[in-house]
């Protein structure tokens, strides 16, 4: 069995040590994504804590047939990070000065077990090959959680064009994973 799935099954069975193992295997990836979305370390670390708490509480709902463990954790991280940005924007009305804080910009070395999966490498390469306007639209949807309408406003582009760009981008990424 996939080692990740094995760990999640132990978490589901109530084994708190398995959460530590899950954390060691995936925390840096979860933090990376959370940071990419919330753009500051303190919020990103809060997101990491929330994600592993949620994983602990809901591990029984995880289905290996529906996606990888990393995908499951990152999906939770994305949702929580976007929620955090949205509530912060609602509080401040603008992201303004908390957009970036004092964080070393160089990425620290990535532990061995966190080398990206083949699938992630394929997606990353395919992202780079997307036409810039498609990549921008998809990034606004994925990393900023904007709706199609919000993206259309942000880019001053017709809604139909935004939909087409996102759909085309996702289709291209799907083909890259399939082939």
């Amino acid at each position, binding site marked *: 069995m996939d080692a990740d799935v094995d760990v999640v099954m132990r978490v589901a069975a109530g084994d708190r040590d398995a959460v530590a193992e899950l954390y060691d295997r995936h925390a840096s990836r979860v933090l990376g994504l959370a940071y990419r979305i919330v753009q500051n370390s303190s919020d990103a670390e809060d997101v990491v804590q929330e994600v592993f708490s949620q994983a602990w509480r809901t591990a029984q709902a995880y289905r290996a047939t529906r*996606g990888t463990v990393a995908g499951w954790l990152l999906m939770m991280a*994305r949702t929580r990070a976007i929620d955090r940005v949205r509530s912060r924007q609602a509080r401040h009305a603008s992201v303004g000065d908390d957009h970036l804080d004092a964080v070393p910009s160089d990425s620290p070395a990535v532990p061995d077990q966190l080398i*990206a999966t083949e*699938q992630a490498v394929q997606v990353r390469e395919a992202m780079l090959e997307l036409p810039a306007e498609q990549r921008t639209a*998809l990034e606004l949807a994925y990393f900023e959680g904007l709706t199609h309408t919000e993206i259309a406003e942000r880019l001053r582009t017709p809604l139909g064009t935004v939909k087409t760009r996102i759909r085309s981008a996702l*289709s291209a990424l799907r083909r890259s994973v399939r082939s």
Partner: protein
Amino acid sequence: MTLVRHVEIMEKLEAYALGQLPEQDRRDVDAHLDACAVCTRELDALNTVLAGIGESVPAKTPPPALRSRVLEAIAKEPQDRPAPVPIAPARQPRRIQWALASLGVAAALLLAVGLLAFRSEQSRRQLAADVSQLQERNAELVERVQRYNGQADLALSILTAGDMREIPLTGQQSAANTAARAYWSATRGLLVVADRLPAPPLGRIYQVWVIENENKVTSSAGLLDAESPGRGFLIVTPPRAGAGGNVTVAISDEPPGGLPAPSGSIHLAGSI
């Protein structure tokens, strides 16, 4: 589940996977996913890609204190105890359910024939007639299931085609309030979905046209299916092999059965 409903859910899957749908739409999709293996598979594929985007972000080493903070937090936290989920996959593809249901009816009837074999010649004849009627009905059902599945597969292949373009259709005259859109892929075909569609003029039907603007060729894509009042849809392979360039999709009213070229008023139209 009607085909147009299935297509409407397919249209929403991307927004669903991206977490962009309003609450009510999200619940509609959830309810549909419980019963539809095709959309579930499609959603899994989308989620795989989205997970890949998440994984492609550079990892970041967490500060050591975060690990103990996480473990302390869960030490105090109980786990959710969801209702037990059956180990066997809960979602049996609907296409199989349909086929099994119709086959089951035929099998039960055949069993009844065996049990009643000693009955009089007359009731045996009656039963044989019933069996043959049921087998016909069975064949008809299987054909309907195959047609449904074929159309649903075609709709999905159009929606996910690399060259697919969405074309909003604008209503003219009485169709001014109609919400309609076409999805056009020169390689896979055309999908048209219309809501709040007024009934066509008396004795007329709606026919869909693909006009290739550069080649100046107009082809009939077929008649708009009226699945329920106010709702129309059409799923077809490209009406002309090699159709390319920018196209206009138009819907006109025509006599029953349709015509080789448009003659009636245009009610909806849109161009790439």
